[in-house]
């Protein structure tokens, strides 16, 4: 099945599309940390890293599907950000800025890794088995009721890896990480319409790949 990316997707008008949780706003406290880190204050930068390490790591991880690669890329993104702090003007939030560095590094890495097939995903945490949404999805909504959580995870990740990098990134940032369209547009340095278009197309593809598991 060949699907083309629509120019003006109807999904862009969905009212409930925006995620509940978004990125943290830049606070004066954070700006102070950035100024101190810019002067070489490593404890201040340590504080900044601790604030965003999980989100940055998760994004890189969902893009690479590999813990070791995500570890290296996330660390390198923070290192590069530290050395580039002098060029950070404060036009966007520090969070968006670091995100952009991490995303660019990850996309460059994936281009180089193009033909290297690897999938060593982390195990699900214990909370997954008690997530009401997932329990409902498996026990009631899924046509294949015998499907296990691990199998569902495997199919989902395989479908994600079939997406192109920009489409996978949009799905990761929006549906997994919870960023708004505006934030994604800033991170990817494109307009909101492009973000919505990519998101719609990526979801359409995923839905097709996972049709056996979605009623």
């Amino acid at each position, binding site marked *: 099945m060949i699907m083309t990316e629509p120019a003006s997707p109807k*999904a862009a008008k969905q009212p409930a599309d925006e995620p509940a949780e978004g990125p943290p706003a830049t606070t004066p406290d954070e700006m102070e940390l950035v100024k101190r880190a810019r002067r070489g204050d490593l404890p201040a*930068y340590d504080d900044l890293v601790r604030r965003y390490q999980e989100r940055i790591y998760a994004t890189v991880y969902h893009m690479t599907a590999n813990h070791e690669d995500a570890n290296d890329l996330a660390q390198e993104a923070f290192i590069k950000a530290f050395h580039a702090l002098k060029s950070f003007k404060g036009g966007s939030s520090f969070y968006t800025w670091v995100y952009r560095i991490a995303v660019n590094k990850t996309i460059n890495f994936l281009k180089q890794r193009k033909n290297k097939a690897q999938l060593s995903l982390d195990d699900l945490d214990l909370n997954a088995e008690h997530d009401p949404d997932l329990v409902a999805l498996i026990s009631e909504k899924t046509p294949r009721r015998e499907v296990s959580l691990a199998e569902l*995870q495997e199919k989902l990740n395989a479908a994600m890896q079939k997406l192109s990098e920009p489409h996978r990134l949009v799905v990761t940032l929006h549906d997994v990480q919870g960023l708004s369209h505006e934030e994604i547009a800033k991170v990817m340095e494109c307009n909101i319409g492009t973000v919505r278009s990519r998101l719609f197309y990526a979801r359409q593809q995923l839905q097709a790949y996972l049709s056996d598991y979605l009623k």
Partner: protein
Amino acid sequence: MNPQPENFEQLRRLLMLKRHEQPPPGYFDDFSRRVLMRIKAGETGDAAAGIGRMFWEAHWLGRLWSALEQRPALAGAFSLSVCGLLLAGIICSVAPAGPGSPDLVGGSQSLAAIAVPQVSSPSAVFVSSTNGVLPGPLQNSLFEQFGSAEAQPRLIRFSEPAMGQ
């Protein structure tokens, strides 16, 4: 295919599953410390360039390998050139560096003669592969005295003593 492709609610719920994919426990406890250590070590965050170079090299080798697989003539030429380089390397490593040294390629001297150090004696020394010990100079030989004049046989007369004296 889903009859209602624009209703992504179930897909979004399924994608929530990915939020439960977590790194090993305690991973983030040490994350920032590792970042700061690498900053202190002088890293610039461009280590991926090294990785990229490695992947580029691997990609280059992969392309060469696939080209060799697809074209037997190219594979033959490649193997011949590799053999030629190997042979040239062997010859260059065996040939001595001095200008007065024997020319192995010319065939003027045997390999054994090259391998054995030259004896300072003007007399000829023959070396064979079965001779495990190098012969020393001939004048130091234990049997040399038999070749000199002092070693010539002499006639010795013994006189008999007179009786009754």
